[in-house]
């Protein structure tokens, strides 16, 4: 059942992404309405699909490469929709929806079978650790989009080559503010995700820190965002520099999220397909 819903989600997200991209070109209010409707419907089906999967599997469905990207996409779209209804920056959707679509496509490439949960994962720490980390990642995805938009808009203004993006994208101040907000929410989530992970590791593997590939990459990511936060607060980093950091940071997030599990091996690798 959850698989069927998942397929519906895939269709809605792809259609929504297409609509958001055509909104970027055409700028007709009706297109943005359709796009938002697609994404909202997709999100509802997605919620149902994840709930069903939870009931079918009997554990929080975030343990393999089918479940995890899908859950991250769900978190990204959820946070984005809240943001769109609050701040009305529709053009943001044109940047965020492709990311969610890619994640869902990655997800659909992996086996959807429900296998037995590795004993080490049978713990109440699983949902706490992973959900915290994933929501942090989702918020960094928003910061990544704001960063891309910032670089485009800044380039237009700085180089004095005013193109159509100049009219469509929000102001530099707004984009930089989003970067700032995302950092102040995403960083604590990432930190908490790592702390809970290390407590769990103490119970499961016997040590708080074991230099596992995922741990190393997460630490790298954490240092990147910590540097940005420090720069923002104490040195006055902002604008372009902060945007570049958010973009690089998100690549690190994506690598420790997907790359580690598909390319490297370590304690966090439960899923090998």
């Amino acid at each position: 059942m959850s698989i069927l819903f998942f397929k519906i989600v895939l269709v809605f997200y792809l259609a929504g992404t297409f609509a958001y991209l055509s909104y970027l070109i055409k700028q007709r209010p009706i297109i943005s309405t359709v796009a938002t409707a697609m994404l909202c419907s997709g999100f509802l089906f997605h919620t149902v699909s994840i709930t069903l999967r939870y009931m079918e599997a009997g554990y929080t469905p975030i343990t393999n490469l089918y479940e995890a990207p899908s859950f991250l996409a769900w978190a990204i779209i959820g946070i984005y929709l809240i943001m769109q209804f609050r701040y009305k920056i529709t053009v943001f959707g044109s940047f965020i929806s492709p990311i969610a679509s890619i994640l869902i496509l990655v997800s659909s490439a992996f086996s959807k079978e429900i296998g037995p949960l590795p004993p080490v994962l049978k713990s109440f720490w699983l949902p706490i650790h992973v959900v915290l980390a994933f929501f942090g990642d989702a918020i960094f995805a928003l910061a990544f989009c704001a960063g891309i938009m910032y670089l485009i808009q800044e380039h237009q203004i700085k180089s004095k080559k005013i193109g159509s993006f100049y009219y469509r994208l929000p102001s530099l101040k707004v984009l930089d503010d989003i970067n700032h907000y995302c950092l102040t929410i995403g960083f604590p989530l990432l930190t908490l995700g790592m702390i809970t992970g290390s407590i769990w590791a103490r119970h499961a593997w016997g040590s708080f820190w074991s230099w596992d590939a995922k741990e190393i990459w997460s630490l790298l990511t954490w240092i990147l965002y910590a540097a940005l936060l420090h720069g923002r607060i104490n040195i006055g980093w902002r604008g372009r520099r902060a945007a570049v950091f958010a973009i690089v940071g998100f690549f690190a997030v994506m690598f420790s999220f997907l790359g580690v599990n598909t390319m490297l091996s370590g304690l966090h690798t439960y899923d090998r397909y």
Partner: protein
Amino acid sequence: MHIVVVGLNHKTAPVELREKLAFPSDTIEEPLRRVTSIPQVSEGLILSTCNRVEVLAVVRDVGEGIKEIRNFLSSHHRVPMSRLDASLYSYDSYDAIKHIFQVASSLDSMVIGEPQILGQLKEAYSLASKHKTSGVILHKFLHKAFLVGKKVRTETRIASAAVSISYAAIELAKKIFATLENKVVMLVGAGEMSELAARHLLNHGVRDILIANRTHSRAERLAKEFDGRPIVFEDLTLFLDQVDIVITSTGSSHYTIRYDDVRRALKIRKYKPLFFIDIAVPRDVEPRINDIENVYLYDVDDLRGVVDANIKEREEETKKAEKIIEREILQFERWLESLNAVPTIISLRERFEEIRKKEVEKTISSMNGGPKIDKEVLDALTSSIINKILHNPVTRLKGRENTRKESYYIDAIRDLFDLEE
């Protein structure tokens, strides 16, 4: 009933001629009365701004009506027709409706998308309705025009891309700072252009203005005028850490603001963005400062580039606006066509006849088994009641043809008896 527009605008007439034809709003009653006293004309309105003078009227015969209104313009302002002829345009029916919708949407303005015209049109309408020279058709028409104007404004970005240099500078500032509220501006050198820009910025809510001028007394005078602060010209770079927007326009032959000054200031202000608008020729601000992080420098040529981009952007939006207008014209024309006495009388009769027949049938079928009723008698009775009731309204409608009241009555009847448009 036809809508006509006769007038001239900035495209067809030079300012000297437009001045001559202008109607001051405080003495508009008399010309309004003269327009509506033309036998052809049942409703009239005069729109007079510095860019256009137009008479909008509802007439019975298009050719005659337009001719009379043209004569009125010529005789009222004592300008011979030979001088007016080439500049006056006249539109009727579809074209007239389209023209007024375009005017209301600011598509026909000198600066396309400028917001004042809709207000001026509203003012013209309120004068006409105050002096009772507008009736039901102009009432509906103008409200439709206001609606179209608003729709174009909200659904297209026709007004958002500015085509003057000072507007372009403000739009740029907004793309950098999101809002100008609480921003501090520094004026360096006092020229007509920079004063104008400062005034624009003040209108957008900037918090404070610092003014530096080589002649300090002039800076003080301007500071008083803008409610700002004068600063010593030689020290102006010391204030760069406190301001967000700098407008320079000195006559100096060398750079007044240099790369190192800006770099130093930026460190102190923790890299908060700084926007320089250099409208001086030769330039006041060292061009290299545009390379500094979070510093943006635009000179006059750069701003012209933005204006060009804005104009191009607007052309696309204009097409969108035209589509909206086209849709609204269709709707309005349908309503206008329904406002004829003859079809209204016909459908009014049909509506009554329909009711009569239904009630007669009902009565006969409900009398089943009761006393026998002659259907012919019943028909004759009911028909004659209807004829009696309708006699007066119908003769009134026919008799009032081509007065302002006619369309008023027709509209009311259509509404009261729910006749299809």
